[in-house]
């Protein structure tokens, strides 16, 4: 329970936050909802010299139209996203995926950007963002850049976010017309995180699969797109046989995690099982 000491500032603007980050250098960390960072600090597993609180910056909040898709402020909470009619209308996948994250209290405080920036290999948001082809707007005092979520995660708790950068926005392009989506997970019973979580966006055109994205979390040291699954499905009829054949590739190329809750063999098998189930469900929902 007892954390080591640290400094704290709560800048009023994003520019001030960036200046704070630059000033404190690698010693500084960002905090928004705190639900990724504080648990580690309480176990004295993360040591932090200075916390910059960006949880209230208006520039990082809100949900708006973005080219027919949505741009979601990085410090928007799960609760705010789950309550958004726009999200419900355009990205039911987010509703399905985020409704089971943590618990009521966590969803009230936790933020989308915080989860992505933390790059926890077992959290749900990275898989959802991968399946949705999301992009991230990152800003530092030196300027801003946009990166694809695909490629953003480098390892367990390691991402492409630089120490002097703040994630400003998560941009989700419109999904193809008639796309079906699904998120299914096998939960680690103690922590509530995912042993395997599979997010799928799938669209058909003329009786064949014309678009498919499969984001997988919990299986490897970071969330990834199951590209072999996607390529096997593309152009297929999207029927059960094709789905089963594709799902067998769910963990291709991955160094699969192994722990007391799911050893490598079981986790690999579940990556396939839950990929099959999630793709089946998305395909059934596609129109």
């Amino acid at each position: 329970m007892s954390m080591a000491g640290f400094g704290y500032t709560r800048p009023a603007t994003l520019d001030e936050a960036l200046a704070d980050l630059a000033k404190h250098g690698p010693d500084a960390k960002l905090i928004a909802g705190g639900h990724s960072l504080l648990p580690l600090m309480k176990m004295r597993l993360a040591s932090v010299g200075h916390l910059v609180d960006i949880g209230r910056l208006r520039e990082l909040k809100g949900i708006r139209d973005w080219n027919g898709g949505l741009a979601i402020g990085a410090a928007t909470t799960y609760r705010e996203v789950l309550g958004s009619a726009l999200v419900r209308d355009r990205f039911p996948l987010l509703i399905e995926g985020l409704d089971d994250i943590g618990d009521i209290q966590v969803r009230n405080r936790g933020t989308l950007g915080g989860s992505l920036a933390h790059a926890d290999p077992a959290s749900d948001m990275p898989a959802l963002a991968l399946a949705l082809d999301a992009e991230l707007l990152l800003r530092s005092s030196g300027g801003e850049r946009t990166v694809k979520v695909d490629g953003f995660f480098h390892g367990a708790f390691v991402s492409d976010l630089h120490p002097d950068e703040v994630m400003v926005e998560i941009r989700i392009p419109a999904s193809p017309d008639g796309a079906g989506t699904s998120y299914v997970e096998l939960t680690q019973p103690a922590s509530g995180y995912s042993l395997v979580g599979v997010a799928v966006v799938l669209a058909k055109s003329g009786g064949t699969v014309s678009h498919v994205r499969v984001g997988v979390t919990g299986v490897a040291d970071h969330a990834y797109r199951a590209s072999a699954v996607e390529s096997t499905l593309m152009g297929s009829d999207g029927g059960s046989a094709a789905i089963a054949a594709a799902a067998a590739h769910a963990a291709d190329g991955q160094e699969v995690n192994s722990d007391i809750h799911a050893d490598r063999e079981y986790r690999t098998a579940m990556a396939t099982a839950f990929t099959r189930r999630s793709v089946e469900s998305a395909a059934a929902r596609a129109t």
Partner: protein
Amino acid sequence: MESVALVVNGVARTVEVEPRRLLVQLIREDLGLTGTHVGCDTSQCGACTVHMDGVAVKSCTVLAVQADGSSVTTIEGMAPEGGLHPLQAAFWEKHGLQCGFCTPGMIMTAADLLASDTDPDDDAIRHALEGNFCRCTGYHNIVAAIREAANKMQVGAATSAEGAPR
């Protein structure tokens, strides 16, 4: 030290804290409101649940400084002195507590649930308690208590609507 100004159970308070102080420590130790409990150190058990700006949060996973400017309600503020919130009454009526340690957090989480879903079924109630552990009751009577409170609150809402000026 940082100065934290917040409204707790309707009373404005200002407390000087180290940045590492948690909201739960401020509530329990600085303000002496010990109805909010600490049952774990991994942000899971929910015994520390309070309402911050109207929503349930785990006060062990909020820095006191993050609550600056907020309005906080704890179990002690759920009803006027001498009165009971319908959830408190229902937990008593339905034997929804044994040792009582998880109870304040359970009630605060249930209040958040009932604010958004006035008529939850048992599955919804059990799902809403995902972040609150109880080791005594097997949850059976907690679920019954929350269902009872929802029923009473619906009746109460209907009654007060009828009684309201038209």
